[in-house]
């Protein structure tokens, strides 16, 4: 039987507003623990929340980018549970009247677009950060000490819930990268999984291919990189298939991803048995986003990354297009002249590999460099790439260099490499053609990178292949 994975996501995005969601504390990452706190976000007696208007605007903007309806009247609710990262004993969130409902994000994939339904996007406050020292993999159970950093407590957080429209870990990764890029381009979040400003939980189930009914889902938590999300989902999909194929039943549970082992373990029932006792937050009035606000946010939208991936895929293929757009390098790509696929390759491989920020590159100079790429020594090209981000970078000194390409100069070097590598030469002659690359590399190395690899390749092949 063929099994189809069915995956829905819950994504949390921290907004990069200047201040927190309900107080005036600075919203900043990486400062000393508990230095950005006040009576409100520490839940001192008597403190009251005051909503951050900018956060509301930005959520509206995100909702519009995700093609959602913006609600006329929005309520905040209290979500009640006890935990040390939640100083009030409740989180101010949205429940049955969220800000954005019923949208979609269309994700380009090599074999066509997938439309991922957005159930809702709502605004809430982030919990504080807990650090469990000692014990089992940083979890609270068995920890020696638990520490709380309230700097994170109260940062505006948008929760985005998708329909179960994703059917593989690869789909999920494409969706997440596209969503991330969308959020980054809206300038509302850094959306960095490593920093926790973008977080993703997945609801996973499997069903026989073609069966419309959904089966029991499990919830996967703590996957804090794109790679972990994919690994976690793959592991859970395999587990569920095994359970069904061995005649068992999948039970609803929450699973915690352990990045060290790559495995999933169930959270204790105590941690998941919640009745959140939602009720409307009496400290806040209902929010009614005005038509003016919605239109102002709509006017700030630019062409969204999904559309650009589709457009670029025709020029450079899906993979490079997705890479360029979701890494924010497609603007540079558009400004650099030259063979489209070649330009895309240089930007995605060499420039990205050298960690050159795309904004810092002068497209004219990069165009000149790429135009001379085949003609100049490899070493000159590589060195130039490293420096393309420098403010005063000029391609001129590199493109004026010439490769060592004349057969007479290269002949003694080639002879020497052949003499120094008898076993490789013999293996090549015995049919291991891949070894030619190694020998070419040795020649280029001997010329400190100045030899033209195509010429060396040709000469070596000629030398090693018996005439006739």
């Amino acid at each position, binding site marked *: 039987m063929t099994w189809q994975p069915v995956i829905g996501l819950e994504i949390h995005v921290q907004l990069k507003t200047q201040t927190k969601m309900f107080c005036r504390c600075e919203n900043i990452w990486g400062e000393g623990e508990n230095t950005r706190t006040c009576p409100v976000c520490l839940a001192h007696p008597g403190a009251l929340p005051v909503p951050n208007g900018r956060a509301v605007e930005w959520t509206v903007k995100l909702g519009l980018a995700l093609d959602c309806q913006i609600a006329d009247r929005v309520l905040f609710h209290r979500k009640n549970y006890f935990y*040390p990262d939640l100083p009030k004993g409740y989180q101010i969130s949205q429940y049955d009247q969220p800000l954005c409902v019923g949208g979609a994000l269309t994700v380009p994939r090599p074999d066509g677009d997938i439309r991922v339904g957005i159930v809702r996007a709502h605004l809430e406050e982030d919990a504080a950060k807990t650090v469990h020292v000692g014990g089992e993999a940083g979890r609270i159970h068995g920890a020696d000490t638990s520490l709380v950093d309230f700097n994170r407590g109260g940062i505006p957080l948008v929760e985005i819930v998708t329909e179960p429209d994703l059917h593989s870990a690869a789909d999920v990764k494409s969706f997440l990268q596209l969503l991330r890029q969308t959020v980054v381009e809206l300038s509302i979040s850094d959306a960095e999984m490593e920093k926790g400003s973008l977080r993703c939980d997945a609801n996973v189930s499997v069903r026989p291919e073609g069966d419309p009914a959904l089966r029991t889902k499990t919830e996967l938590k703590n996957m804090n990189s794109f790679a972990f999300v994919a690994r976690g989902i793959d592991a859970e999909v395999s587990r569920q298939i095994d359970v069904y194929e061995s005649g068992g039943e999948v039970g609803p549970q929450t699973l915690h991803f352990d990045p060290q082992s790559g495995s999933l373990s169930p959270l204790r029932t105590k941690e998941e048995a919640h009745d959140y006792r939602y009720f409307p937050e*009496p*400290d806040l009035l209902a929010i009614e986003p005005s038509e003016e606000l919605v239109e102002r946010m709509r006017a700030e939208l630019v062409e969204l990354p999904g559309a650009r991936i589709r457009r670029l895929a025709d020029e450079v293929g899906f993979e490079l297009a997705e890479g360029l757009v979701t890494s924010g390098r497609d603007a540079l790509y558009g400004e650099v002249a030259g063979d489209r696929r070649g330009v895309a390759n240089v930007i995605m491989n060499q420039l990205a590999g050298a960690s050159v920020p795309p904004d810092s590159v002068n497209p004219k100079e990069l165009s000149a460099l790429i135009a001379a790429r085949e003609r100049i020594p490899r070493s000159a090209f590589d060195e130039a790439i490293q420096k393309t981000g420098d403010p005063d970078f000029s391609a001129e000194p590199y493109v004026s260099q010439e490769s060592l390409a004349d057969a007479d100069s290269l002949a003694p070097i080639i002879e020497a490499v052949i003499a120094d590598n008898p076993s490789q030469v013999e293996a090549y002659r015995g049919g291991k053609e891949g070894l030619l690359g190694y020998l070419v590399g040795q020649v280029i190395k001997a010329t400190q990178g100045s030899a033209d690899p195509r010429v060396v390749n040709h000469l070596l092949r000629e030398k090693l292949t018996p005439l006739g």
Partner: protein
Amino acid sequence: MAPTRLAGLDTSARGRERGRASASRARGAVPGAATARAVAPCQAGTRVSIDTRSLTAEGAAGLLEQGDVTAEELVEAYLAAIDAHDSELHAYLRVAAPRGNGVPIAMKDCITTEGVETTAASKILQGYVPIYDSTVASRCKSAGLPLLGKTNMDEFAMGSSTENSAYGPSRNPWDPERVPGGSSGGSAAAVAGGLAPWALGSDTGGSIKQPAALCGIVGLRPTYGAVSRYGIIAFASSLDQVGPMTKTVRDCALLYSLIAGRDPYDSTTVELPEPVRMPEREDLKGVRVGVPPELNEAQGIEPGVAAAVADAVALAKSLGAEIVDVRLPQSVEYGLPCYYLIAPAEASANLARYDGVRYGYRGEATDDLTELYEQTRWQGFGPEPARRIMLGTYALSAGYYDAYYGQAQKVRTIIRDEHATAFERADVLFSPTSPTVAFSLGARTENPLAMYVSDLLTIPSCMAGLPGLSIPCGLSEGLPVGLQLIGPQFSENMLFDAGHALERALGFDYVPARLRAAGS
């Protein structure tokens, strides 16, 4: 004291003139230096004797303004009175180190005061010293009012007698064997007993008006949204309001003017539609007074209370008021049960922050988080907060929400509409504030429901978010009876006018008879 110190209200010439014209004021309410000099001295060493039992805040402001006393002398007089009488009344939980050049004030212990311990009379906040001032405390500070101290209350404002204080009950200055009411019982006892010229209380379902009535003073529960709740230890957020507790209606208007108005730290506050006016009226001509039978003939209203209120209604008529027929058929019947779903539900969330992690009381050391929560909360909360947390948690639980909390919110809308309809016919509603006069200590502690009924008449208008003023309107069995005046939203100026005209005509002596008899 310059009038500007009291928010620009004219507290000087006219107030004193009228004070002299009124016989009742001549006994103690005269807000002027002459009368203050006339009373027996109780504080040696001051140029002018200060009788804290009778001195009003307006009178004290007059003394300061004329230079007859200094702010320090005024504070000294009250500290001396506290020293002499608070061991009996237990109005204060703690006395502060008062600073400021204005008329000193006492604040209920659920009002956070930076650097001054604030416990809401709960063990769970024992030793908690706020790191910030509530907006009302900060406004009083800006106006120069020295803080005398923090007054006793029912724990987390849950109760109607102050017997639910974790630190022992306060006592009624009219009869120390009786309760001062609650939950702002300490503030009421302090003002009635001459231990503070005025005080701030808080009101959720009657916690200002009821103790004001039981102690024979004036109390205002403002319109919801008129006074900031920032820094008020929350009981039920959709109902809590801070308000003045004073000897006279003019003092009440004065203190209200200092604390009211929009606060950027409380998004449920609004700008007042009109500035606060010091009441001047001496008649009630053209005022339509509604006397809803549901509030005036409810079961449990003592005959003496009903009689005093009926006399006040008759007096209002003689002052020119028109008595109109209004009904509140569902508000009174369903107000109390509805309140006891909504208030505990909100309280169950508001009190969740007291977990022993960041401040206040912490249960005995344990390695287990859940145990820490359980021990802290079982040991830290008294029986009444524990009861209400459980009631509220139940009312919000999955499967019960619609039947309890959801239904109560719908009833609340009906109560609001019913009041709005009543105010199409009437400008103000009259009723007893409390069905009974002050009851004996211990009389209702065994039966929570009997205690809850103390607020039967104050709860409906609280549920509707409306302002209510309680003024003393006579005695029954030698104990004060409170008249409740309810107005539409933001009708405080009208309530002050009506209350002031009645107060003048009633001539109630707010100095408890036994203190008056005891002399100095």
